């Protein structure tokens, strides 16, 4: 069985500084995988490299066995990978409903069509309604997305991310900046909507990570120092050292 | 100030958008020229001259027919062909039968074309087009029609006269032609080469070039070429800022000879040249003001300057338009049947206060008149321009210029 996502010796330099220093990672279909690590470890960079936002310096990223090198974000998306952003990234002037409906368009095969009316497609509208229901935003469907609360925007962001029906979902700190109750809400949501899909997430909140992930990778200074089940990782001495070290450094 | 009455917007819609019938005792003349935007000063000055001419030469003398008076109504075309056509329609709806326009041959082309079509499609309210200033030769050649009359000498006739003068001067051996890159500039350049080739094959045209219209910021490179070509004379059809900047630049860069031009006077250009242009700028024009050819002319200019101290008597042909129109209406005995008026205008001879005789050639509706070469100077100037002390003084005169000039016009009469 090919891995959903396979990363081999991935490297990225900005100028002289090497941020990602040879990452190898294999994520199997249906797996829920979390990447953790101290601040500045390169988690977001790794994310952006996988999704084609930045070009890599060296190495291979393969989605279902296909190399992603040189592919534009929209091409990667069409191959079945969808992502969310750390900073909320929605269409603020469009209504919530429109946000979701737009994210369904490509996967429903509408492409650059100018002979279909979006309002006339039952499948499209019902699909959008279904997602709204999943993310529990039906009541807000007709207001501009920019006017939603922060937690609602995060929920919408996840809704947009999963709407396209991609089987590999990547979430970049989905609970960043949230209160406890909001975090619980988002966690349930994520568990719900990624049922049967491959999930890759970067997360700070250890509660979320250990509650959701099947496997965890720890990224420190651009290298993965450990990969395994939550229990394995928790017991790993290098991980403890890295986190302890970071904590000590922070004290200075 | 414009004679259009001012209303609130509501009243405006009512009057403008619904046809207002013309009064029986006034004959309205629509003046369609720029009254706002970059060419507004030329347009406004022209409107003043029209209003003054209608008042002084017609209304104060008892009007035409049975005391009907002339009224000039200004329409702002913003020098845009599209706007001109809209304003033409507004004018026609107000019952106006006489359209005068002069600035820009592009607008004149659009108007003559539209008027021809209008008269063909609406035989009940035909109009005449009295072109007082657009000099594109095509208007009285390929594009001529029965409804169009030109009161200025066209570019070819002026060039014919100008090259007569140049041909007489044996010291001239090198000529530089420069102009704006559009139909008029090209017409001037072509006519200059053609006439000089016929009259003085020994004269060398050392440069003949076109520059983009209204886009040149700095004429220095052109001036350098002109000076180093050793030209004795420059001929240019430039107008507006392009004229001023070219003239100043060549003089600054050391050009000593005369610059023969079509439009290097009034509208601020005379004042801006001032001492710099003295005895260098020469204008090929019509209508003599210095010295005033007749006492009538002198009195007329004085009266005009008394009323418009900031104005210029720069387009003397405007009086010809008004006088000849009045005469034609009297002869035809009607102001509403424009065909009769047009037929009266055809072949009309008229003594103008600016000296000489005018003749409206029936073949192409081109007015044949004396063409003058005048020089920019402050000596012996009775009537200056732009109140600058400088004016145009007569240097030579070509009588009835272009009387036998050929025309390709095939006039279709109704």
């Amino acid at each position: 069985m090919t891995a959903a996502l396979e990363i081999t010796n991935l490297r990225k330099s900005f100028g002289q500084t090497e941020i990602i220093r040879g990452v190898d990672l294999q994520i199997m279909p249906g797996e829920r995988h979390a990447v953790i690590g101290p601040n500045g470890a390169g988690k977001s960079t790794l994310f952006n490299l996988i999704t084609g936002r930045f070009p890599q310096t060296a190495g291979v990223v393969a989605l279902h066995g296909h190399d992603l090198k040189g592919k534009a974000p929209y091409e990667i998306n069409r191959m079945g990978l969808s992502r969310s952003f750390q900073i909320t990234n929605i269409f603020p002037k469009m209504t919530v409903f429109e946000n979701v409906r737009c994210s369904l368009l490509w996967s429903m095969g509408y492409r650059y069509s100018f002979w279909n009316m979006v309002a006339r497609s039952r499948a499209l509208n019902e699909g959008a309604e279904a997602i709204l229901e999943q993310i529990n935003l039906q009541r807000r469907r007709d207001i501009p997305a920019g006017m939603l609360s922060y937690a609602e925007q995060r929920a919408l962001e996840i809704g947009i991310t999963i709407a396209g029906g991609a089987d590999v979902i990547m979430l970049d700190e989905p609970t960043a900046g949230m209160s406890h109750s909001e975090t619980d809400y988002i966690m349930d949501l994520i568990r719900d909507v990624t049922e049967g899909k491959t999930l890759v997430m970067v997360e700070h909140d250890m509660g979320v990570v250990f509650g959701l992930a099947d496997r965890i990778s720890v990224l420190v200074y651009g290298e993965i120092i450990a990969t395994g089940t939550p229990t394995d990782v928790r017991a790993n001495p290098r991980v403890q050292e890295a986190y302890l070290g970071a904590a000590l450094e922070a004290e200075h | 100030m414009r004679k259009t009455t001012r209303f609130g917007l509501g009243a405006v819609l009512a009057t403008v958008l619904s046809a207002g019938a013309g009064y029986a005792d006034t004959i309205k003349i629509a003046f369609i020229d720029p009254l706002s935007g970059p060419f507004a000063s030329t347009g406004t000055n022209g409107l003043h001259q029209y209003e003054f001419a209608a008042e002084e030469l017609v209304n104060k003398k008892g009007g035409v027919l049975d005391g009907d008076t002339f009224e000039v109504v200004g329409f702002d075309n913003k020098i845009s062909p599209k706007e001109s056509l809209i304003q033409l329609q507004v004018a026609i709806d107000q019952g106006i039968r006489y359209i005068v326009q002069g600035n820009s041959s592009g607008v004149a082309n659009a108007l003559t074309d539209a008027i021809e079509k209008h008269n063909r499609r609406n035989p009940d309210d035909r109009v005449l087009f009295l072109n007082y200033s657009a000099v594109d030769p095509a208007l009285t050649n390929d594009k001529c029609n029965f409804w169009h009359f030109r009161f200025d000498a066209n570019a070819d006739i002026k060039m014919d006269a100008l090259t007569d003068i140049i041909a007489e001067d044996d010291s001239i051996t090198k000529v530089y032609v420069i102009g704006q890159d559009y139909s008029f500039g090209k017409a001037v350049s072509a006519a200059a080469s053609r006439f000089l080739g016929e009259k003085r094959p020994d004269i060398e045209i050392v440069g003949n070039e076109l520059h983009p219209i209204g886009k040149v910021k700095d004429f220095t490179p052109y001036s350098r070429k002109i000076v180093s070509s050793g030209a004795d004379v420059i001929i240019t059809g430039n107008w507006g800022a392009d004229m001023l900047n070219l003239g100043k630049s060549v003089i600054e860069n050391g050009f000593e000879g005369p610059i023969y031009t079509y439009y290097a006077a009034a509208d601020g250009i005379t004042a801006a040249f001032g001492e710099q242009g003295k005895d260098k700028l020469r204008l090929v024009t019509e209508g003599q003001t210095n010295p005033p050819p007749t006492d009538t002319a002198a009195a007329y200019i004085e009266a005009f300057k008394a009323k418009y101290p900031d104005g210029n008597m720069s387009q003397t042909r405007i009086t010809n338009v008004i006088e000849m129109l009045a005469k034609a209406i009297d002869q035809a005995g009607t102001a509403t049947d424009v065909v009769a008026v047009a037929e009266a205008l055809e072949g009309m001879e008229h003594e103008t206060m600016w000296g000489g005789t005018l003749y409206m050639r029936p073949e192409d509706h081109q007015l044949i008149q004396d063409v003058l070469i005048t020089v920019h100077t402050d000596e012996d100037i009775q009537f200056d321009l732009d109140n600058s002390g400088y004016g145009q003084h007569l240097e030579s005169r070509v009588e009835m210029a272009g009387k036998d000039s050929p025309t390709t016009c095939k006039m279709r009469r109704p």
Partner: protein
Amino acid sequence: MTDTTHNTHSDVLAGSGLTLAKALPWLIASAFLLVMPFVFTSNSAITIMNQMAITIIFALSYNMLLGQGGMLSFGHAVYMGVGGFLCVHIMNWDQFFGTLPLPVLPIFGGLFGMGLALIVGSFSTRRAGTVFAMISLGVGELIAACSVIIVVFFGGEEGISGDRTYGLPFFGIEFLQQIEVYYLTAFWLVLSALGMFLFSRTPVGRMANAVRDNPERAEFLGYSARWVRFYSFVASGFFAGIAGGLFAINYEILTEENLNLATSGSILLVTFLGGVGFFFGPVIGAIVFTLLQTVLSLQTELWALYVGALFVATVMFFPGGLAGVLMMHTPPLVLGKLHLLVKPYIKTLLPAAICILATAGFIEILFHARHAAIGDDQMTLFWMTFSHANPVPWIAFGAVALGGFWLARRNAPELVETWHEANTDTGARP
């Protein structure tokens, strides 16, 4: 909450078919267009209405870029222009034009405008923002400059002209009269407006909004921002070309002014004045601007000054344009509180309007005093004739302006307060 569920339902259902509520605005607009010539019967009124219709199509096509696609263009006139030029060339092509009914002609303008948009769009839509704006400026300048250089196609500065009546008679109509042209133009207006409206409801039209708001996110939804922009651009070029074709039919002449930067700039002005945020915004802008340009300019030489001031004021205080101002009243209307606003409006806006008119009057007197001929001190303003040498009108207009300003200023807080109240849902809905 039953309310929203109900909404949801009706929308989905409405989506599957054409309902009266959706068609109503279009039917009203069409009926309005049919009736107009019976209200304003003169040829000049019809000419002005034709001009409006053309400007509306052009402005709507411009808003496909600016409002819906987030692309700021400084050279949109060229697509309308070349479409129009081609149509005039077709008019002059006797054999072909003789077999072509005139109402079909704008299609060719549209296709040609689209063709040019296809070429230019292939490189200009790769990026949005400043790069797009500057390429549009550069291309606009280049083509406008070409118009005087390439005489064969553009006819130099005098342009090219044709005669619409040489086309194949259309059910016996030869389009000799303005009124016949009016109905042709009105037909195309409805058709193009409907086309552009429906375009905005297609997948690519929706994605144009998405790309405008957030191009990066759109990319991660599987859409290439560049191609979405490209398709919008091409469609916009098509409708601009239609407007050009109608221009050719109306005026029978196309000149350099149809291509130049001033025309491109004024359509930006028209669209923004009307409001870019709503589909019908440019329609309002086109109507208001055409009236200002043709009617106000008959009344005062200073019209451009007033238009400029109006424009700057709009950008500063009402960035949603006139349509935005209108639509601001939707919440009070929905809340049933619109009537609250009537009195404060009268108390504030009436003095403000009087202040503006009096200021304009003052400016007019000043202008007359500076530029009128000696002895010509009589002027007519607001149905009053007086001399500018007389200090009374100066003082009167000045005093009225100041008084109006003071009154408007005094009553403004009340308006603001009422405005907030009218926009607050107090729950007490009938």
